[in-house]
């Protein structure tokens, strides 16, 4: 159905070169935001959107960017895009902005965006660049959500807490109490919990990889 190249791009982003578990890129938001599922998913999707637009625009103009100054130009494009996305959200989807607002500027500092632009979009066709950025973004989102779910269950005993902030008050009942009467394990919510959780996820991925190789 897809060409070999397209398939490679998809499996690289989601598994083989997963930004969170293999390239270990974009750690700043990964560790800061993954304390619950809702935050993790929201920032993951926003990052994916910015990555797709950034890679697409760089791929379109890749031939007119002088090699020596490509990094400043990439940073400029990414920062400008993030700001435009932030302004647009602030103006037109205010409810979502209130939830994500503080995280959006963090996307600029996420090196996975710059990494995909530099490693892929500056050399390849526009369509493939957008696909690559989207898949890498979704790969990162997957890791974020898994880590967020782990930390939220262990730390608070719930899933989807705070969903009403993203989807409105009607979603208030969607919070799933996984472990009832749970008093919480603070370390899972605090930054060390993110490091421990990520370490476990990386170990799990390596173990899967080894088992498959055998």
């Amino acid at each position, binding site marked *: 159905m897809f060409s070999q190249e397209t398939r490679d791009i998809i499996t690289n982003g989601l598994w083989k070169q997963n930004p969170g578990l293999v390239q270990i890129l974009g750690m700043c938001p990964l560790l800061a935001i993954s304390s619950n599922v809702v935050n993790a998913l929201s920032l993951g999707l926003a990052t994916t959107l910015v990555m797709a637009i950034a890679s697409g625009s760089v791929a379109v103009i890749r031939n*007119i960017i002088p090699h020596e100054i490509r990094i400043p130009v990439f940073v400029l*494009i990414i*920062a400008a895009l993030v700001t435009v996305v932030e*302004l*647009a959200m*602030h103006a037109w989807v205010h409810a979502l902005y209130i939830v994500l607002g503080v*995280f959006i500027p963090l996307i600029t500092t996420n090196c996975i965006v710059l990494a995909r632009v530099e490693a892929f979009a500056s050399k390849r066709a526009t369509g493939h660049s957008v696909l690559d950025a989207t898949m890498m973004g979704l790969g990162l989102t997957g890791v974020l959500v898994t880590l967020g779910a782990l930390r939220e269950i262990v730390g608070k005993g719930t899933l989807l807490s705070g969903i009403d902030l993203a989807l409105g008050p009607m979603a208030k009942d969607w919070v799933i109490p996984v472990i009832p009467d749970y008093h919480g394990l603070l370390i899972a919510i*605090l930054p060390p919990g993110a490091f421990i959780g990520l370490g476990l996820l990386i170990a799990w991925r390596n173990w899967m990889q080894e088992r498959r190789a055998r």
Partner: protein
Amino acid sequence: MIPSIRETLSTALTLLLFCVVGAGLLSGAYTLTHPAIEITEQAEKLALISQTLPPGSFDNDLVGDARPLPVNALLGLKRPGLSYVAQKEGKSTAVVLEAAAPDGYAGEIRLLVGIHADGRIAGVRVTAHHETPGLGDYIEIAKNKWITQFDARSLADTPADQWQVRKDGGRFDSMAGATITPRAVVKATHKALQYFAAHQEALLNVGCGYRTVGASSEERTAPSTGDHSRCGSLRSPHPTSGDQ
């Protein structure tokens, strides 16, 4: 090999061009979104201000009747802020002060402190902060009820040494792992109450001829015929505000 001046210049010009295009894009997006952002922020501000007051405690146009607050160490504001007087049937029932805690975990925390005319707190809300999401952000009413523990507190019912988080020997709760944030909010709220105590008359007495900053209609800016002898000055330094 040293690149020729021509090459250097053309590279620099290309970068400049990208900067100009980027700046143009940003100012375009700003111009396009600014009116919409302004409207939502105003509406949000009014909603937030009325949250710091009991429902039905005012019948005036809070935002329109706003009056300037000077820069004062007790309020922690870097730029002049605003105060919003709540009036019911022409009588001042409460005032909402803009204040800031300069010592949050990640910079300034901006607050609205609603104070009843008798000096009790009507409500406190956080309007802007940069605290760690998921950790220090429980000061937001949307995330946690923490901020409501200030309700009905006053300088009279809580002695100065009790205006601290429980961990430091005070009366206010905080969450483990994020103490710097509530510490800053408690301190700023306490100071705002002190500011209110020092300038109570001037803050509540709308007849004092202070210019309003809302709709600058003539009658609003005209000096009033109110009882001027009761008008304190907002700008006079108060002798008891020792921690400036």
